[in-house]
């Protein structure tokens, strides 16, 4: 792959950068979930690997979060963009060479940033933990090249109109640049106090709302019609989804700080807007599920469809939680508890990961023209991921409710810690299952590249029967 960095653009085979991104994403997923499993072990067994600064929980927690967000999820997005945007424009990617460099610089920058975080070199701001030179690096060498490739591919497309998926890809690559630049202003310009605290959560909210959620949804808008062969149920509902994401998801940042001394009007406004996030959520889920009409057998039979629909179904509890847990009526009970941790994992490991997983499975098979090496391992990956995640989510939700009760009934804190202990063990077991399932996935995709059945030109991988 690396030899293409210095090749002429036209000599690079189509899809190379998507394949490079796809495998990078899976590797980061293995690393990120491995770190997650390690961290969870420390919460369950505090004396597990101790007395070393570099294996302390406070040094590793943020590395896990940033590895899965900027490594796994965002690179899987880039993979999907490099593959789906040209496919929808009936052309090749604008520049494969830019894509290859983008992926290489992304891996280098992320490794550097995570190393700094690991060493404790942090801005001390949740989700924008990277020191600001790394943030600027991400804008310059990650977001701008990616956005350029996506935008130029759309602008030079050979089809009429722009399909729903590409509205989201184009606008999200633009918006995430703005969010990174504006959200880190406290670091470049040394803004302090409540401004710093608010902008920290403005960034955290918008990187989820204007990057992760819409791009994940956009991927489903492609995979379900493509694999099932059904046209998208309604473009008009797609419009509703797109515009309501831009309007309603970009405004509730303050609902992350409901119990802080921010101006009251801001918290009330954010809370109302936060409930309105249900508009894009319902539009998206209904649109995808209705597209499945007549093809529900594929939910059972086809791995990519199963991943995508599972992700869509998880968007229902996700958004029901998200819409209401941030209102004052509920937030006072569950704020700062494991409930929120469970919710965050439902968004990133449940909803988002399952949608991207489908795109990576589908994209790598299509681009490498190789059918998946082993369906059994694919199924094993799916079920271990799902059961591992569910174990995690249920245990953390229960732990969160215990913490909430402990908080309002003023139970001595240590009693809450004792009560949570079994759920911390369950969380570690669930997280470890996710980690192991991803190792299986990496092996499966590697073997697909080497030994998968060759897919003839013009056929979809799932149309071929399995030989083994």
């Amino acid at each position, binding site marked *: 792959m690396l030899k293409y960095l210095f090749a002429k653009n036209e000599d690079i085979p189509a899809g190379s950068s998507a394949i490079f991104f796809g495998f990078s994403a899976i590797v980061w997923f293995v690393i990120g979930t491995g770190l997650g499993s390690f961290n969870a072990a*420390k*919460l369950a067994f505090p*004396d597990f690997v101790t*007395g070393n600064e570099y294996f*302390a*929980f*406070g*040094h590793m*927690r*943020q590395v896990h979060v940033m590895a899965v967000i900027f490594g796994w999820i965002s690179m899987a997005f880039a993979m999907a963009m490099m593959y789906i945007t040209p496919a929808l424009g009936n052309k090749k990617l604008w520049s494969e060479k830019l894509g290859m460099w983008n992926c290489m610089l992304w891996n280098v920058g992320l490794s550097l940033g995570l190393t700094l975080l690991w*060493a*404790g*070199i*942090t*801005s*001390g*701001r*949740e989700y924008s933990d990277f020191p600001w030179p790394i943030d600027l690096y991400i804008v310059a060498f990650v977001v701008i090249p990616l956005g350029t490739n996506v935008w130029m591919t759309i*602008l*030079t*497309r050979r089809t009429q109109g722009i399909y729903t998926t590409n509205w989201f890809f184009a606008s999200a690559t633009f918006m995430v640049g*703005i969010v990174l630049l*504006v959200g880190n202003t*406290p*670091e470049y310009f*040394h803004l*302090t*106090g*409540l*401004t*710093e*605290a608010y902008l*920290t959560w*403005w960034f955290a909210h918008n990187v989820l709302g204007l990057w992760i959620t819409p791009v994940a949804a956009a991927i489903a808008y492609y995979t379900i019609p493509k694999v099932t062969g059904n046209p998208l149920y309604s473009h008009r509902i797609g419009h509703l989804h797109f*515009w309501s994401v*831009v309007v309603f998801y*970009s*405004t509730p940042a*303050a609902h992350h700080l409901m*119990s*802080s*001394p*921010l*101006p009251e009007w*801001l918290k009330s406004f*954010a809370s109302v807007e936060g409930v309105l996030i249900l508009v894009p959520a319902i539009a998206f889920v209904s649109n995808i599920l209705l597209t499945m009409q007549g093809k529900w057998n594929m939910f059972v039979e086809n791995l990519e469809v199963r991943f995508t629909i599972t992700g869509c179904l998880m968007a229902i509890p996700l958004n029901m939680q998200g819409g209401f847990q941030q209102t004052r009526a509920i937030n*006072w009970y569950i*704020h*700062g*508890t*494991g409930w*929120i*941790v469970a919710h965050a994992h439902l968004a990133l490991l449940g909803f988002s990961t399952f949608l991207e997983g489908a795109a990576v499975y589908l994209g790598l098979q299509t681009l490498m023209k190789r059918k998946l090496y082993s369906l059994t391992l694919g199924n094993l990956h799916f079920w271990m991921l799902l059961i591992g995640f569910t174990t995690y989510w249920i245990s953390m939700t229960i732990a969160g409710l215990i*913490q909430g009760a402990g908080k*309002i009934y003023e139970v001595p*804190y*240590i009693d809450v*810690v*004792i009560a949570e*202990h079994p759920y911390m063990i369950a969380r570690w077991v669930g997280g470890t299952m996710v980690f192991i399932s991803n190792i299986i996935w990496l092996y499966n995709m590697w073997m697909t590249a080497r030994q998968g059945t060759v897919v003839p030109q013009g056929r979809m991988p799932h149309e071929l029967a399995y030989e083994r």
Partner: protein
Amino acid sequence: MAFREYKIGARMFSFALGSSMMITLFFPSLDIAAVASTEIALDKQLSVGHETGFNWEDPFLLGKNKPVKVLVKADPKTGQPIEAVNAYVYPVGTSFPSGILHTRNLGHGVEELSIEQGRIKDVRKEDGAVFTIKNGTFDGKPVSYIVNATATMGWTPADVLKNAADENVSHVAAGKTMFVREGCWWCHTLLPEQTQDWQVFGAPPMLGDFNGESPTAFGSDRKAPDLLHVGSRNASREWMMLHFFNPRLVQPHSIMPRFDYLWGETDANGQKIDFAKWRAEYVEYREGKRVTPPDVPSYSKDSEIRSLIDYIISLK
């Protein structure tokens, strides 16, 4: 242009995103900028200095380029006993906090008094400075303001530090740096909630309590008690020392990590700390082969743990 059919869409998009930015960034900034610093905010920003997250003066978060908080009991210039006062000592070359560099951040009233009576515009980084906090009135309302004691009373950083006993010197800023670097805030919040934390964790902060502090490190995921007022609940250095070395010594069910590595190489007497021996003896104690746990080494006065304990105890 291939995009002409999307002109209306592009305009709608700019309008939608622009309005969203207007409401979520511009309007709140007007409100937040209009807030005057409380005495708590002045104490915090003078204690923790310019920045306790990543910055070029202290890129590895080692607690460099930081002020110290000193309890002054005698006038450092004349030696005459005075009523004890907290002085915030910025040795030569130390970066000043946001409120000194940008006095507008202090807010209405505080800014005027700090400039006119406190003479904070007269500071020079090359000379260092000593600050105190005083209470005055502005437009008939009580206001706390910053006093540049170097300009008003001739207190120099060197004099204050020379005359101060070590137990009166508090490395709050370096300790906050450790708090950020070691990720204490991943489990301990610094934000009692407005609805139900009053009884256990104390009063939630007010709007003007943060001016000038960076990062605020509120924390979001409370796996452990809130610490904003922890110094009021427990100010025992001995307890803190045992608890940081191995939390299970004082709280058997604690899931807090051990921070023994913050002791550094040597203890208070300059003896090398044998961590392996300590851990082996602790394991024996846990297995019931010893009656008492091994003694926790006392920390040296320039160790990182000393700064961290200074910071934790300063959270009143």
